[in-house]
């Protein structure tokens, strides 16, 4: 398994968050998640401007094998969606932490980082799931 990017926060649902300079938070799925899903064939994206709730469905990623919900890890509003995924969902497979980002959310307030995982904590979760 490849090294986890150190500048991201993670969730137990195998998603990652990156705080962007413009105040939004980029969200995607981890390398572990894309590998478990296999070849992605479709991504259902939310509308820009849509409100999202912490823990609520926000997008759906579908591989050949299965459909999987992407949950919002924070409260806020959808600021941007990755339109590239509409035609090229496999970008998530090839670059899950970069070009394969899914949604940018403008947080509705302060982000409770204690509810999210550091790279070390997420790695520990992966190790545990492997065992």
């Amino acid at each position: 398994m490849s090294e986890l990017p150190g500048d991201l926060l993670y969730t137990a649902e195998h998603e990652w968050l990156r705080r962007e300079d413009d105040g939004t938070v980029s969200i995607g799925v981890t390398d572990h998640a894309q590998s478990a899903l296999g070849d992605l064939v479709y991504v259902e994206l939310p509308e820009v401007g849509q409100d999202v709730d912490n823990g609520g469905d926000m997008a759906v990623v579908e591989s050949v094998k299965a459909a999987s919900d992407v949950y919002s890890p924070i409260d806020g509003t959808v600021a941007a969606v990755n339109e590239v995924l509409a035609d090229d969902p496999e970008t998530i497979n090839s670059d899950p932490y970069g070009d394969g980002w899914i949604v940018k959310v403008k947080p509705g307030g302060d982000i409770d980082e204690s509810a999210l995982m550091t790279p070390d904590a997420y790695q520990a979760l992966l190790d545990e799931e492997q065992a």
Partner: protein
Amino acid sequence: MGKKTPKHDKHIEAGARIVDFGGWDMPLHYGSQKEEHHAVRQKAGMFDVSHMTIVDVRGDRAREFLQYLLANDVAKLKERGKALYTCMLNEQGGVIDDLIVYFIDDGDYRMVVNAATRDKDIAWLHKQAESFEVAVSERAELAMIAVQGPEARELAAPCIDAEWRDAALELKPFYGMEAGDLFVARTGYTGEDGWEIVMPAAKAASTWDRLTAAGITPCGLAARDTLRLEAAMNLYGSDMDETISPLEAGLGWTIAWEPAERDFIGRGPLQEKRADPNKMRFVGLLLEDKGVLRNHQRVVVDGVGEGEITSGGYSPTIGRSIALARVPAGDYDRAQVDVRGRLLNVRLVKTPFVRNGEVRIEL
């Protein structure tokens, strides 16, 4: 942990992701199920199908027994080695299992049934066999590898002893033959040419290695599922089960109605269903919108009624989503599918979707 096939260690070695399938630990994929899928359509792939259950039926009355047991008629099997696809029905005309039966010799037939249905199949066979004095023996000591794809037979041929190789290569579709300690049949579950090779378990791992070295791509159950879906081949438990008539699962063609005096299990209810103008249709769907059709999604036919997707997924060959579905009677060629609350447009198409590497539907 589930049962392991004789090739289990080989799968782990090759980086397989293992899943439980009918109590067996089976490889789901070895990396990319899409690449495995394309390998079968374009060249050659192989599947460990040792979990499938092989049952030999022997005795003077074996033919008579199978004529009663199965909805298709083994009397059609006149040449040795010829195979027949058929359903085994319950008294209500529901499908206990679908299977292939081979005519090996007079009084000697071989059946290949599903893994997930093994226990109930074996119990049913023994129960029905009682009054026929036939021997029903499961051949758990045998392993099976399916090699599939346009180049599969050619690449796999060296695994068959020279003595039988030419004869094996000359097998017509849906025929099988014994080749030393192997049983080779020109059958499969992908819509491509190929063989299914039955062998002693002790030979399985070395054969797998030889086939890999010959350039045949190891494929998992995930690719097997997308391939069979494109070929519109039914999956037991998904497209039909004991509550479903073969007539509502696209399997009417496997029922031998003639001779009318042949009594087979389930015949009565099946004839009633045959005459029912409201019986459900079993159709292929092509998704016209973006998205992916999945099992159990609701099919809505405006002004007619509702049905259900029995097998849905993404077609790697077509690059769009396809499905098999049970839908209400009526004359229509468009419908909608409820995908997470959104109604997406689908077109009814004539199956198979893909056969021998070619897309067979209008896109």
